[in-house]
Every structure is written in structure tokens, then in C-alpha cells.
């Protein structure tokens, strides 16, 4: 021992005077936490994530409205107004000449400009058209069997209310967006779900089992992966029975594509599991006698959850807008079926961008939904992350 170290004064002997009870229980945490199931814990954590909660609620609302679009939309999806073609959005006012009137729009006149072949709309500042609520308007057949004609809001008698403008046949863009949600928010989900389930299961087994199974799966993946989606779409559209409705054909294509689309995810899952399966906790689970399904589902996949959630949220735009690509190839959904993708496909020309930009409005709900899914995903991720 060196000199200066040895010459240090001895430390004081300190003894705590505080009362000592070896049996004192740790009062550090709420005991209910100990009994709560993992799902419940996750939910508790999720609730603390404000944005995710709001997003979740938003999505819930969105999916609920899908059920009652007939009531919410001021017009029917196909209601045309030949005198109101390409009408720009109308503004809702509350005050007319300084006095409160309640929500109303000004009446409009349309003139044809025969030189440029444009329809010119001008507001009539003296014609106040008060909006009506819970009112009778276009009649519809709710969910295909209940007749009705009550709408949340309608234009004044004889007036019009095109809050987001009209399209080339004088149809109300707002109503079409509302109706479009029905298809957009539901159908594509099928394909995504199919491909996710397959991707996780097949990729999971391949990654976990390895060996010949992995080999076979990898070869199949390669084969499927080698066929780009476009030729597949084309081929598929060609073999779909001609008397299927376009909705059904689209459904069929999404489903089949879902069946074929799992390869990317499967590879990602497999690669990750190839690494994860070497972890000790997997060995531990094996030694407890856990089956493959349990090990993959309970031990391995959770470790890859963040990626899966991110991937899922990223495929959602694809699912909502999938038909836009398809319609580019002359497939996909078509009018009279209305979806956001169809609406955007119709807005696919420079004309719209230059002259009728309001027809691009369906992009907004798409963005909102995607953001909502994304933040929801973030929240779920965080709730499932033990380190959080």
C-alpha cells in the first residue's frame, strides 16, 4: 500500500439510529398492479398517451360514422345538379349585415362563359339561405332496406349547400367523401389483415423453426416476391369473372393480393426471429415445454412489435388508396362505387389542379385517418414497451 493512502485517518464508525424492521413491506407500488393482467396494464399505460387516445377516439368516431353516412351526408352520393357543375366550395356564414342569423350560405348564380367554357359562379350577397338541421332532403335507403330522408343538415328549400364544392356532374363533394369513407375504411383492411396474419405466422415459423421449413418458405417467398404486383394485378383482373360487381372484384383482388403480399413482412419477421430465437428466454420457454405457437406469439413477436405496428400503420395508406394505383391500370374500383381512392382518381388531371382544386379535398380525410392510425400505433407501441 502506498504511503499517502495508508496515512488516511480511519473512517468514522457510523450507525444508523433509525428504527429497523426487517419485515417492513415495500409500500412502493399499488398492489392492484401486481394482479392486473398484462392487457390491463397495457391499457393503463395506453390511457396516459393523450394523442393516441384522441386518435383512437377519432378513429372510433370515423368508423361509427361509416354506419350512418346516409344521415350525415347532406345529399345522396349520386345526386346530381346539372346547374351546379364544378361549383367551388361555399362558405358557411353566421352574421348577415352585422346581425346574427345562424348558419347560412349565400345564394349563387351560375353563368356560362362561352369563350373559355367555364362556369362562373357569383355569390348573391342579398340572398340568405339558412341551413336546416334534422331536416328532410334526398331520400335514401338506409343500409339498403330502411327508407328515410332525414339528414343532419340540408340546404334551405330551393337553395344549395356545397360546403366542399361540386364535381363535374354537380355532385356534392362533401357527401361523396362521407359515402366514400364506407368503402375506404373497410375493404382494404381485409387485404392488410390477411397479409399480416400470414406474414407473421409463416415468417414466425420460418424464423423460429429454421431448417427445411425455413428453406421451403424462403423459396416460396422468393418466387412470390419475384412477381411484381403490377403484372399480378393485370393477370388477376383478367381472370376475375366478368359478372362480378366491381366492388366484389376489388374485394377479390385485395384479398388475393393480401394472400400474396405477406412475403415482405414474413422475411422481416423471419430475420428478426432468427436472431431472437437465440436468446436465453426462448430456451427457457422451450424448456418449460412451450409450443412453437406460444413461443412465437408470446416471446418472440412482442420483441418485434414496434416494427409490426409501424409496418401496419404504414400499410394503411396503401389500403385506403390501393385502388388509385389499380385504377391507373384500368382496374380497381370504378364509379358508381365511391371511395376516397375513386374520388382522387377522378381528380387525376391537371385540369383539376389548375381549375378545380377542391376536388383534391379527399386527400384531407386520408391524411387525418393515416395520422390517427399512426399516433394510435405510437401509443400502442409505447404501452407495450416495458421500458417506458
Amino acid at each position, binding site marked *: 500500500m502506498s504511503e499517502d493512502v495508508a496515512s488516511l485517518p480511519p473512517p468514522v464508525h457510523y450507525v444508523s439510529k433509525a428504527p429497523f424492521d426487517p419485515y417492513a413491506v415495500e409500500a412502493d407500488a399499488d398492489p392492484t398492479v401486481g394482479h392486473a393482467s398484462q392487457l390491463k396494464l397495457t391499457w393503463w399505460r395506453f390511457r396516459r398517451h393523450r394523442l393516441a387516445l384522441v386518435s383512437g377516439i377519432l378513429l372510433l368516431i370515423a368508423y361509427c360514422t361509416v354506419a350512418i353516412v346516409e344521415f350525415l351526408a347532406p345529399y345522396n352520393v349520386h345526386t346530381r345538379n346539372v346547374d351546379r357543375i364544378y361549383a367551388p366550395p361555399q362558405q358557411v356564414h353566421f352574421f348577415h349585415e352585422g346581425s346574427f342569423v345562424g348558419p347560412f350560405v349565400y345564394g349563387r348564380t351560375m353563368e356560362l362563359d362561352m369563350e373559355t367554357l367555364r362556369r362562373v359562379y357569383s355569390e348573391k350577397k342579398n340572398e340568405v339561405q339558412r341551413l336546416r338541421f334534422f331536416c328532410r332532403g334526398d331520400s335514401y335507403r338506409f343500409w339498403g332496406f330502411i327508407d328515410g330522408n332525414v339528414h343532419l343538415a340540408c340546404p334551405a328549400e330551393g337553395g344549395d349547400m356545397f360546403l366542399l364544392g361540386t364535381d363535374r356532374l354537380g355532385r356534392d363533394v362533401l357527401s361523396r367523401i362521407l359515402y366514400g369513407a364506407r368503402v375506404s375504411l373497410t375493404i382494404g383492411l381485409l387485404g392488410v389483415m390477411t397479409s399480416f396474419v400470414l406474414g407473421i405466422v409463416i415468417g414466425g415459423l420460418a424464423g423460429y423453426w429454421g431448417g427445411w421449413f425455413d428453406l421451403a418458405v424462403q423459396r416460396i417467398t422468393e418466387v412470390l416476391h*419475384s412477381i411484381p404486383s*403490377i*403484372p399480378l394485378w393485370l*393477370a388477376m383482373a383478367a381472370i376475375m369473372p366478368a359478372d362480378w360487381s366491381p366492388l366484389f372484384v376489388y374485394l377479390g383482388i385485395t384479398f388475393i393480393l393480401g394472400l400474396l403480399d405477406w412475403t415482405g413482412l414474413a422475411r422481416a419477421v423471419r430475420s428478426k426471429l432468427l436472431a431472437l430465437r437465440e436468446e436465453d428466454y426462448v430456451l427457457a420457454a422451450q424448456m418449460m415445454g412451450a409450443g412453437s405457437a406460444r413461443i412465437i406469439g408470446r416471446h418472440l413477436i412482442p420483441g418485434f412489435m414496434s416494427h409490426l405496428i409501424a409496418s401496419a400503420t404504414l400499410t394503411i395508406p396503401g389500403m385506403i388508396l390501393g385502388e388509385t394505383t389499380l385504377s391507373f391500370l384500368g382496374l380497381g374500383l370504378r364509379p358508381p362505387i365511391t371511395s376516397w381512392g375513386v374520388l382522387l382518381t377522378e381528380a387525376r388531371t391537371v385540369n383539376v389542379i389548375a381549375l378545380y382544386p377542391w376536388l383534391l379535398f379527399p*386527400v384531407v380525410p386520408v391524411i387525418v385517418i393515416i395520422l390517427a392510425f399512426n399516433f394510435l400505433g405510437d401509443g400502442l407501441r409505447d404501452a407495450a414497451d416495458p*421500458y417506458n
Partner: protein
Amino acid sequence: MIRYILWRVAMMIPTLIMISMLVFTIIELPPGDFFESYVEELKAMGEKADMQEIEDLKARYGFDQPAPLRYLDWVAGFVQGDFGYSFEYRMPVADVVGDRVWLTVLVSTVTIIVTWLIAFPIGIYSATHKYSWGDYGLTLLGLIGIAVPNFILALIMMYFANIWFGISIGHLMDQDFLGQPMSWAKAKSILEHIWIPVIIIGTAGTAGMVRRVRANLLDELHKQYVMTARAKGLHPFRLLIKYPLRMSLNFFISDIGSILPTIISGAEITAVVLSLETTGPMLIRALQNQDMYLAGSFLMFLAILTVIGVLVSDIALAILDPRIRLQGGHTK
């Protein structure tokens, strides 16, 4: 490892045979053939086709033979480096593809590199600054890029690029340079044009990559080995790159298999909208017209690249994470 690679290369042969059958089937699936659709298209334009020549062509390319024979013919040619004949262009496939491949490679590589260059830093930033304004802002921007269909983005950008900067709409270079040999002026013109497709094709990919990098990185940031590395006094950035980032690259590496073919095929739809002189539009046209040897050979070429890509990705995976045993089965 070498044994594994050799063995995998051998495995490619049956795979490719299967793929070739599938490709052939897919091209054959739509009813009719090139000639029918050609005649139809002419008819639609009010024209009539030289039926004589078409009959001749049909006979010459074996369209009177059953499909399996044609398949064998095609495959045999393919193996010998004869990729067949394009009916639409009326010349050998190899000539048709020609230059387009290089332009496609250029656009795709630039796009991919730009995507990575943007996505990785942002992804890392978002993961390390979770829920900061930067994270939210960049997420928002990226998701908007995903949410707006590419073709609309393309149209909007082209329209305004034309109105504001006077850049001609679409294409990879000024039209005057088309078909001209490479020159400085041409290169400059390409550089002036390439940013639009790069942005359009890149947005969605970048945003996707950012989100994935972020998600994977977040999982790694709390691991014990990160703490160990910090205890060594490693610079946080170097630390991030060396440890958690590398660990989180697994997903990225596993995707290499699909990067190779995209370099050659490019983003088809966007290329169509922007009328880029790349292979994508050519492929789509070939498919729609059932120009089957052109489409088939091209698809086959992509398939070969995919298969190679998958092998590369597997090897890279094993290098990335030495724990990975590619050959071993699991223990029970």
C-alpha cells in the same frame, strides 16, 4: 459459409424454374395475345391491321403452338441469352430495353440513396427525441407524403414546377437530348430534371423508412449493452451508430432482396405519370399489350435479381448478427 453459399446458389435453379413458369402463366393468363390486342387497339383508332403480317408473326413466334411448347422455347432462348422478340417494338428485347436500364438505375439509385440519407438521420432523430416537436413535425410531413397518392403529387409538382420555374413537364431530361450521346449539357439537364421524380418516388419510401427506423431503434435504446457502452464514455452519436442502430438494422437488411429489383424496375406508376424514360412504363405497356417476350424476359430478369438479393440479404444478416444460424434448426 462458402458451402452454404454454393448450396444456396444451387437452390436458385429450381426456384428460378418455378418463377419462370409462374411468370409465363401470369403473362398468359389474360385472354388473347398481343396480336389480338394490337388489332383491337388499331380498330379502336379506326385503323386496320395488316392481318397478313400478323398471321405471319403469329406463326413465326409459335402462337399457333400450345403454351407449354412456347414456354420451353422461351426458356431455352433465355438460357442462351436470347431474350426474345418484342412485338410492339418489333425488335429483339435486348435492344428495346437498352438505354432505359441505365436511366432507371440512375433514378432508382439516386432515389434510394437520397431516401436513406434523409430517412436514417431523421429516424434516429425521431427515436432519440421521441415526442419532440421535431419528431411530430417530421412524422406529419412524411405521412402526408404517404397519404397523397404519388400521381397526384407528381401532377401537382410538375404543374407548379412548370408555372414557377418553367421546368418542362415530366421526363428525365430536356427533349432535345433524347437519343443523344452523353454530354455535359445532357448530364446537367438530367440533374435539373431528376429531383422531381426523386422527391415523388422518395417521399413515401422515406417516411416509411423513418417510421421503421424509429420503431426498431426505440426497442434497442434501453438495452443493457447501451448502458455498458455509455459507461465507457462513448460519444452518444457513435454509440448510437455502433450499437443500437446496428441491432435495429435487421429489418432493413432483410429487405435487400427487394431493393435490387426495384433498382431496375423503378416506381412504375410514377414513371408513367412523369413519362420518365425508364423501364417501368415499358414494362406496364408490355404487360397491357401482352408483348409477352418483352414482359416475360424483363420479369425474369427482375426475378433473378430478387433471388440474388435474397441471398445477399441472408449473408448480410449472418454477418450483421453472428448469433444467426442460417442452416440450423431449432431445439425442442
